[in-house]
């Protein structure tokens, strides 16, 4: 018998999130006038490898943006650990945090709101360099910015124009150029194409894929569009009401979903093909996403799940591995 090819020793993850909780305070007053708090994220764990895209999916309020912000250290974790390039950065502060931030950048959803309308494109792209003290004047970085604008596919005369002179897709390119200015290894892209039209969306998705290949970037790609996520991601994680219910390799997750919520979610996405779409079976569960301030005991999907048993109402299931790299949090699947 032939020996199996020895497995490559797995490269250490670029980012490792372990048991992350994030707590927000609500405006409401609780007992004794203490502000009420709720857990927007509970026990979130995942790894992201160099050059990899992890798609993070979930419905509105499920905690996608919160996850991105916690990883970038823009909000504080109330429990758990965030390890970046082998270092525990959960509590990094001051100068060390500033240095760290150079290496992790954010691309926003709204290309209109996220760019200061009074700044020229060149100043917008140079801003991160100035803020981090890498240059003292825009002129020092002119060549670099020209190169960045070329890479993201903006016209050469874009430098001195203001954001309003650009279309949505072009503004998103400016946002990406800004994020790339500091040569980060890791980018959190929070719904980067949701506000764009279909034809323009493809331009930006292609650009992000090219940049990844050329520069070896890792992406945490947040979106609620499951079709775009399938296209761009290597692995995909599904959030429901602040918990991760399933994570797997892209095709494994889309072709063989295990968690009842993932199954319903995938079945609800319409496919742009009338024949296929008419034959697809939709799994529609009634009910709504639970209120995070008073979440149900046990599994958060138990209020809608047809498979729920007594155990589900008492105890929250943890992620467990079902096949290599495919983790699911469910008692009955």
């Amino acid at each position, binding site marked *: 018998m032939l020996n199996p090819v020895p497995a490559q020793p797995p490269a250490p993850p670029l980012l490792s999130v372990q048991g992350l909780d994030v707590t927000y305070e609500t405006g409401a007053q609780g007992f004794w006038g203490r502000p009420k708090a709720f857990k927007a994220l509970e026990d979130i764990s995942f790894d992201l490898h160099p050059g990899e895209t992890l798609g993070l999916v979930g*419905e509105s309020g499920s905690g996608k943006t919160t996850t991105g912000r916690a990883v970038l250290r823009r909000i504080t974790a109330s429990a758990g650990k965030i390890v970046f390039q082998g270092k525990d950065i959960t509590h990094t502060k001051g100068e060390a945090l500033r240095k760290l931030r150079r290496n992790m950048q954010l691309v926003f959803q709204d290309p209109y709101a996220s760019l200061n309308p009074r700044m020229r494109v060149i100043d917008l792209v140079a801003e991160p360099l100035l803020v981090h003290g890498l240059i003292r004047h825009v002129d020092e970085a002119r060549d670099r910015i020209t190169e960045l604008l070329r890479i993201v596919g903006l016209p050469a005369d874009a430098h001195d124009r203001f954001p309003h002179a650009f279309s949505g897709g072009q503004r998103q390119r400016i946002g990406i150029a800004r994020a790339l200015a500091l040569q980060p290894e890791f980018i959190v892209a929070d719904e980067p194409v949701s506000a764009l039209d*279909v034809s323009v969306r*493809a331009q930006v998705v292609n*650009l992000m894929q*090219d940049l990844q290949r050329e520069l070896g970037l890792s992406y945490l790609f947040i979106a609620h569009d499951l079709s775009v996520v399938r296209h761009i991601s290597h692995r995909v994680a599904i959030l429901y009401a602040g918990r991760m219910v399933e994570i797997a390799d892209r095709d494994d997750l889309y072709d063989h979903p295990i968690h009842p919520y993932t199954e319903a979610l995938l079945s609800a996405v319409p496919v742009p093909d009338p*024949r296929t779409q008419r034959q697809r079976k939709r799994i529609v569960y009634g009910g709504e996403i639970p209120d995070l301030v008073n979440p149900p005991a046990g599994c958060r999907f138990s209020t809608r799940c047809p498979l729920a048993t007594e155990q589900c109402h008492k105890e929250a299931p943890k992620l467990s591995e079902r096949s290599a790299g495919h983790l699911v949090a469910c008692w009955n699947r």
Partner: protein
Amino acid sequence: MSVSANSTGTPLLEVEKLKVEFDTRRGLVQGLRGVTLSIGRGETLGVVGESGSGKSVTAQAVMGLIDLPGRIASGDIRWKGRSLLGSDGERYARDIRGKEVAMVFQDPMTSLNPVLKIGTQIGEVLERHLGMTRAQARNRAEELLAAVGISAPGRRLDQYPHEFSGGMRQRVMIAMAIACEPELLIADEPTTALDVTIQAQILELLAELQQSLGLSVVLITHDLGVVAGLCHRVAVMYAGQIIETGLAEDVFERPAHPYTQGLLRSTPRLDEVSDRLVSIEGTPPNLVTPPEGCSFQQRCPLSGEACRKAPKLEHIRPDAEAACWRPSVPAWATPLMSPTFP
């Protein structure tokens, strides 16, 4: 599902060569540049196209909602064969709008009054259009909420819009729209603001109502998947014009216009993995000074000398029309890396 629902007699709604202009500071925006479409009884027409292509303006024109700085510059809109324009037409339009033809908007929060109870808001429609008494209207409102799948409808009547979730508000909007048993429902992006599982519920509701009430539906959306699931026919808009129309199955299977071809190939699919999406470079033209000739010229891989003259929407098959000099020619090659990388 029968597809040729428009085969009997006069169509319900006809829009003919409609031009709508907006007099803005930037200049005269040509929002609609000659739109022609029709919809038959029991038929569902999907209208797709990117932002600014004229989908909402078309719906607004039908509903009489074009306000200054906008105006209908030319063309006609007919309901059951009678014009809705001109002074006679406007009187007729007042009778039928809200009653025989009703509309659902994208954002229910802006169309519901936040300080009025849901029951009061639905009741008002019934009292105004159908002359019901308050008690009758309340009973009917409860039935309508039940019909759109809201549980405990009696109790819900006394709640305010903010006590409803986004999906429930959209159900309320649909309940109000079908209150007078309209023949045509125009839904402008009714599910765009909703999560997919809620979107699926609303689309299912629309399909059910369409069947049970024999409704005609115009569904405006930029989600091609939504059209695929629900519509018999589809009209694709670009830069204020319809550039392709036909049976949904045909248009999705053999798109004729290069823009439609590109649109379908630039949309990732849940059930397929592709290495790379087609990307239609560039952006739609400015509607203050639209290009002479075909409006897709600047972005079209097939564009040539002939395209400097505007193509008309013409039959390419018995049930399909396209506005292109070279219809049904494959326009997009398998895409390579972005040109920005050497």
